[in-house]
């Protein structure tokens, strides 16, 4: 219990007749950076809003640091900072005025200035926010999530609208804060964006969690594939599968390469059966591909 900061169990949520979250369960370990990845409309923002106590849910439990979270139970929110969907900005206030407005009494001006400095916003922090670009507003939204040094930070697609430099700065900042013990739950519809950042991955599709794993395990799980072009692909597939090779579902001959898979054995087997090999390719599927594979193959049914 002590090292789980967020625990979501059997969470169900509907908007009208639309069942948006289906029996969602996952947990976030204290001090970890957890990525919540899934296609648009999968339910990432909805999960985050539920975790922030923004609406009622049909069933399930959510706890932060052991305290239950719901619209009528917000005690745990004192430890949380968040940016959901797009940043809410008052056009008539400057960036600094926003930070002062939402800063807790325990947050010092030095801490505010440090956040501004780390987000590289010093140049325009005293201008009115109505003059900000999309990226500048996004940075202000992130700064607002971080300004009170919360224990747990929830960022919904934080890289939206950031240029590559700002993107890199944000990653560095998140890693630094995580080292000091801050826990992060970060969503994105692009895994590669989070790949270098996160410790654990939660994949969601159509309102269901389809995969939870540590990054280390996922990286090791990346498959090596052997793709062959032959004179008779259909026959080659038959022969190979009869001989215990694991074939992947594809138009061409696509074998999962294992430790004991030997090219020589395959060539011999096929030529013994009168099949010529025209071409061979080794493919190491990367994370993005495994994820797409995962989303394509999952057994989630539309309801």
């Amino acid at each position: 219990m002590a090292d789980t900061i967020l625990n979501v169990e059997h969470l169900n949520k509907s908007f009208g007749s639309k069942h948006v979250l289906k029996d969602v369960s996952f947990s976030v370990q204290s001090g970890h950076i957890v990525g919540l990845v899934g296609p648009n409309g999968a339910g990432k923002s909805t999960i985050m809003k539920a975790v922030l106590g923004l609406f009622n849910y049909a069933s399930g439990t959510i706890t932060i640091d052991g305290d239950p979270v719901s619209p009528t139970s917000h005690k745990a929110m004192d430890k949380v900072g968040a940016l959901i969907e797009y940043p809410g900005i008052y056009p008539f206030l400057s960036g600094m005025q926003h930070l002062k407005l939402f800063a807790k009494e325990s947050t010092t001006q030095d801490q505010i200035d440090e956040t501004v400095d780390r987000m590289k916003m010093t140049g325009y922090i005293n201008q009115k926010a109505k003059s900000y670009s999309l990226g500048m507003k996004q940075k202000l939204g992130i700064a607002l999530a971080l300004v009170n040094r919360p224990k747990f930070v929830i960022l919904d697609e934080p890289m939206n609208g950031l240029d590559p430099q700002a993107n890199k700065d944000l990653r560095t900042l998140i890693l630094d804060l995580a080292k000091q013990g801050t826990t992060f739950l970060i969503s994105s519809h692009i895994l590669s964006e989070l790949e270098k950042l996160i410790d654990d991955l939660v994949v969601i599709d159509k309102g269901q969690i389809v995969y939870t794993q540590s990054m280390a395990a996922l990286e090791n799980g990346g498959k090596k594939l052997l793709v062959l072009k032959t004179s008779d692909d259909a026959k080659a597939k038959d022969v190979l599968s009869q001989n215990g090779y694991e074939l992947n579902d594809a138009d061409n001959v696509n074998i999962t390469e294992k430790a004991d898979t030997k090219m020589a054995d395959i060539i011999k087997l096929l030529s013994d059966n009168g099949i010529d090999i025209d071409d061979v390719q080794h493919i190491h599927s990367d994370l993005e591909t495994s994820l797409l594979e995962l989303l394509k193959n999952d057994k989630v049914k539309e309801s």
Partner: protein
Amino acid sequence: MVTLVKQEMYKLLHKKSTPAVSVVLLIIMTIFGVLSKTNPKYWGPKDMFVSMYTGENWVVLFMIAACSSIIAMEFQYGTIKELLYRKYYRGEILVSKWITMLVYSIYFFVLTFVYSLILKVILYNSKFKLSDTYANNHSIVETQVLGMVGAFLSVWLILSLVLLLANVFKSTAAAISIGIIGYFALSMVSGLMFVLMQKWDWLKWNPLNMMNLPSQIVDNSYHKMTLLSTPEMVWGSLIYTAIFMAISYVVFKRRSV
């Protein structure tokens, strides 16, 4: 709660329109003060003083705008989420906005009252005394204060409706227009309303009739048309205000963001 009210005040004070509105109010009152000095035939000095140099009407307009904006802007700017996912409860967020508006309306009433006294002293120091009898055995200053109390109650009846509409429609435009129409509709439809009330007695309890409170509190003979006693109207106004506020509270608590 104190923190929340402070935050609402911070936002209100940092809007450019806030100081501008107070300045405009004082300018308009000054203009009517001067007019009543130069053209006392059209703008009687005593009447102008009692009606606070038209200040009260402008206060209603400005408060309608402020109340619709304090709610609707959070939806318009998308800041409602930021407000709600903190350790505070939804109800507290809404009540902190109401308190801010209550303070703002008291500020406006005090400002117009004090400034009308100042205008009176500057323009008519020797012409008439505040203790002179004005009408219905009330002195000038009594009439003014009573009118203000009545106006305060009926203004809040309108404002509670505006706060509700801003909450329901999440837009300033709808809340402001209905608020203003509601306030000024009274003078247009009151004749018809009084006729209908003679026919159907229960109609006297409609909220628009409550808006006659400022007139009746000063001039008791209004009772013949409103068919309600002054205490009945005071209670009626308070109860309608409470009902609108209660609906607002429920709507706000249930809203998905």
